[in-house]
C-alpha cells in the first residue's frame, strides 16, 4: 500500500506538485495519466527518495518512505526509467543482472547471467543481445532491456515510467501483457505512467489523472469513460478543445 498525503514539490519558482493525495492498494495496478511536464515522473521519484518533497508525506505500508533502512526499502522496488537509464559501460546482461552481481543479492556469475537471459526472453529479446552494449541497441530494445532489469530481482513494488513510449503497437501489446502478468502472477503492486490509452485499458485496475499539480480524478478503470470529468474526458478523447490548455 502506497499513500501520498498532500505532497508538494517545487523547482525554483515552478510549482510542480501542489498537494497530491493518492492511495495505491497492495497488489493492484495504478496508472497515472496526464499531460507531459505535469510532474508524473516527479511523483514516482518522490516515493523512491530520488526527489525529496517540500511538504507532505509518502507512506509505504504505513511507514514513512524517507525514514528507516534505505537498502531494505529499495530492495523491494523495481523501476523502469522514462529514458531507460541503462549503464552504458556494462553489457546488456550485466545491466539486467546488476542487482544479482553485487550487494546482498549477489550470486554466481553464471547463474546471474542465466536469470538475465530468462528475463530478456520475457520482454521479447533473444539471448544474442546479452553481450551487446546498450548503445548498440535501438531505442525500443533499450526500453525492454530496462524493463527486464526492473523485474530481474522480482520486486514487490514496480514503477514503470512510460514503458511503451517509442515501441511499435505489437511490442507495446507484449509489454502491456507482461506488466499485467507481473501484477497478477507475482502479486506485485504497480504504478505505471503512460500516455497510451490502449495501455491504460490493458494494465490498469485504477487510474489517476494528474493535472495542475493535483490528482484531478481517480477511480477504477471501468469508470474512466463515464466519469463526467471534463479534464479526463478531454485527455481520453485527445481533443484540443476543452479545459486543458493545448499550449503549455
Amino acid at each position, binding site marked *: 500500500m502506497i499513500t501520498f498525503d498532500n505532497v508538494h514539490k517545487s523547482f525554483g519558482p515552478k510549482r510542480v506538485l501542489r498537494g497530491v493525495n493518492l492511495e495505491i492498494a497492495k497488489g493492484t495496478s495504478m496508472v497515472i495519466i496526464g499531460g507531459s511536464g505535469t510532474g508524473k515522473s516527479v511523483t514516482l*521519484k518522490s516515493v*523512491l*527518495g*530520488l526527489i525529496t518533497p517540500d511538504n507532505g508525506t509518502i507512506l509505504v505500508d504505513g511507514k514513512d518512505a524517507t525514514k528507516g533502512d534505505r*537498502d531494505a526499502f*529499495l*530492495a523491494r*522496488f*523495481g*523501476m523502469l*526509467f*522514462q*529514458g531507460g*537509464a*541503462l*549503464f*552504458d559501460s556494462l553489457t546488456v546482461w550485466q545491466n539486467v543482472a*546488476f*542487482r544479482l552481481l*553485487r*550487494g*546482498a543479492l549477489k550470486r554466481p556469475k553464471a547463474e546471474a547471467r542465466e536469470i538475465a537471459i530468462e528475463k530478456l526472453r520475457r520482454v521479447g529479446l533473444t539471448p544474442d543481445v546479452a553481450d551487446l552494449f546498450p548503445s548498440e541497441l535501438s531505442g525500443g530494445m533499450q526500453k525492454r532491456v530496462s524493463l527486464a*532489469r526492473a523485474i530481474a530481482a522480482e520486486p514487490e513494488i514496480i514503477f514503470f515510467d512510460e514503458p511503451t513510449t517509442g515501441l511499435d503497437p505489437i511490442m507495446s501489446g507484449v509489454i502491456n501483457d507482461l506488466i499485467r502478468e507481473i501484477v497478477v502472477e507475482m502479486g506485485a503492486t504497480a504504478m505505471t505512467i503512460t500516455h497510451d490509452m490502449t495501455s491504460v485499458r490493458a494494465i490498469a485496475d485504477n487510474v489517476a489523472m494528474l493535472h495542475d499539480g493535483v490528482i484531478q480524478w481517480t477511480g477504477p478503470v471501468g469508470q474512466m469513460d463515464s466519469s463526467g470529468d471534463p479534464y479526463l474526458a478531454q485527455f481520453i478523447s485527445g481533443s484540443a478543445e476543452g479545459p486543458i490548455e493545448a499550449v503549455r
Partner: protein
Amino acid sequence: MVITRGLAAVGRSSLATLSSIGEVALFLFSTLSHMVRPPFYGREFAMALFNIGWLSLPVVGMTAIFTGGALALQIYDGSSRFSAEAVVPQIVAIGMVRELGPVLVGLMVAARVTSSIAAEIATMKVTEQIDALVTLSTNPMKYLTAPRVLAAIIVVPVLVGIGDIIGIYGGFLVATGQLGFNPATYVRNTADFLQAADIISSLIKGSVFGGIAALMGCYFGMNSGRGAQGVGRATKGSVQAAAVLILAANFLLTSLFFGS
C-alpha cells in the same frame, strides 16, 4: 549605483564560493567514509586504476621529458652567468622532484582524468543512470566516487615518481648531448644530491593532487545541471577547480615541507 551593484555581485559570488567550499568538504567527508565501509566495488576500483594510472602514462612521459630538457637548458643558461654551470644536475633534480614533477603530473591528470570523470558522471546524472543506481540499491558515492578517488590517491604518486625520473632523464639527455656534461658524473651528482625528503614530498604531493583531481571530477559530475549544457558546464568547472586547487595545495605543501 553601478558600484554597489558590482559590490553586491562580488559579495554574492564570494558567498557562493564559501557555501560551495562547505559542500565540497561534506562531499570529501562522505567519499572518505565510503572508502572504509563495505561493500567495496573491486571492479570499479581496478578500472579506475587502469584509466587514471596506466592510460595517463604517455602524456605524463611526454610532459616530463620536454620539461626536464627545457629546465636543463634554462639552468645552464642562468648559472653560466655566475660560472656555476656545474649545478645543472642538482637543480634539475630538485626542480623536477620537488615542484615540476608533481605539479605538471597533477595538472595533466586534471586535464585528462578530471574532465573525463566529470563528463562521464554528469552524463550518467542527466540520463538518470545515477537515479537508476540508487533504485538498484547501489550508493553512487560508494560505487562511482569512492573507487575513483581512492585509485587516484594511490596511483597518481606512482605517475609522479615516473614523471620525476623521466624529467630528470630529459635533463640528462640535454645536458650530456648538448651541453657537454659527462654522463657518469651527471648521474652521480643527481643521486648524491637528492634526499629522501625530496622524494617523499614529491609522492605526497602526487597523492594530494590525485585526490583533488578525482574528487573535483566526481563532485562536478554529481552536481551537474540538466541536459547537454549541464554536462558541458560540469566538465569545464571541474577542470578549472581542480587546476586551481592543485596549484594552491602545491603552495601550501611546499611551505609546509620546505618553508622556514
